[in-house]
């Protein structure tokens, strides 16, 4: 606490100063900010976060062709939108986000529009993250999809705080990534050679590929989706509970 001739400057909120009633009118009280500068916070919230979520939204549906590494842009299945909507409800319920802190009557229209834009990018990134982590078709799609639904549904009725939710999401998404890009990808045969050739070379893999209806993508797809998942989790870590006024 700094006391000069006419000013008392208080660092933090715990200091209590008792003053003579007569002196109160002559005293100005300033509270210095101990938080990070406003510009830095705004840069993160209004520039970095949308950039992160937009990148995740762009890359979530991207796969690379097995033979020529050509781009394949997969549109998300309807169930990804349902999961993303439930996830957003979960974010609000757990206190990771405070809806009133993002959209409020007191804010200007532009401020509300910017906050809404960030929430929309978060939704789009979540949709595309599920698009990236859910197997594309066949039995694995239904099994992993059911596991996602089961977990999110249970979480909706559990007592969560933001930190526990983040840990739970890292575990959930990490496991889904491992299932799709480590286990299922390793059960898939390469598309080179004839069907007979592939059966003779690797009957087990060919059988799993056929039985589980596994699509064949280049190994680069796994790297892209790992980057997308990491980026999304960084975005969730950086997103503030309430947007600053």
């Amino acid at each position, binding site marked *: 606490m700094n006391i000069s001739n006419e000013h008392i400057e208080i660092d933090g909120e715990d200091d209590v100063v008792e003053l003579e009633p007569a002196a109160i009118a002559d005293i100005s009280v300033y509270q210095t900010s101990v938080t990070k500068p406003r510009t830095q916070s705004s840069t993160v919230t209004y520039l970095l976060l*949308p950039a992160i979520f937009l990148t995740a939204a*762009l890359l979530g549906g991207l796969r690379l062709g097995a033979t020529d590494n050509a*781009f394949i842009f997969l549109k998300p299945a309807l169930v990804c939108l349902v999961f993303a909507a439930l996830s957003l409800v979960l974010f609000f319920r757990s206190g990771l986000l405070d809806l009133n802190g993002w959209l409020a009557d007191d804010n200007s229209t532009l401020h509300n529009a910017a906050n809404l*834009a960030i929430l929309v990018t978060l939704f*789009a990134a979540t949709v595309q993250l599920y698009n990236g982590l859910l197997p594309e078709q066949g039995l694995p799609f239904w099994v992993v999809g059911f596991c996602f639904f089961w977990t999110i549904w249970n979480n909706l009725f559990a007592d969560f705080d933001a930190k526990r939710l983040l840990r739970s999401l890292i575990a959930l998404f990490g496991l889904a990534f491992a299932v799709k890009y480590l286990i299922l990808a390793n059960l898939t045969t390469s598309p080179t050679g004839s069907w007979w050739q592939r059966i003779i070379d690797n009957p087990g893999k060919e059988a799993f590929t056929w039985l589980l209806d596994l699509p064949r993508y280049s190994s680069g797809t796994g790297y892209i989706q790992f980057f997308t998942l990491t980026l999304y989790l960084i975005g969730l870590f950086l997103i503030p509970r309430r947007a600053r006024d």
Partner: protein
Amino acid sequence: MKEKYFHFLCVAMVIIGFVFIGFLYVSEPRSLAEVTTKGQVAIGTYQINRAEFDLGLADFRRDSFPAARSEFDRADPEKRDPATQFYVAYSYYREGWGRFSNDDALFTQGLAAVNRVILLDSNFRSADETLVMKTPIELKNELEDGLKITTSDFNPLKLTRERK
């Protein structure tokens, strides 16, 4: 910087970002080069590669049709230029034409190409004096006639007809 500038930048960035992502997922480019080409189509600045087109035209006139088509494909990768697509369709016709019988597979591909020309510009008319058929409708009729089996196919006088 004032807070409202951050808000404005944020909204602008999100709108531009979603437009770009939407464009990619709708146009589905298969490489970075295709992103550029499809972007040119979207903003209306797409132009064919004139050098490749000229090479294709030279091969077309030498009756080297497969080579001509691959050059036309490189000249017009998005298949957006009616003149190039007309030559592609014409090349299928000329290659598939036979005095005794036509090649149905080539004629079918020619029909697909000529339908593209009609979609792009239904009033298209070729300025090439060396071509007998100048419009896509004429070419389409010729290709469709070639695919049908009619009693006139068994007319011996048909052997005297010439390729157009």
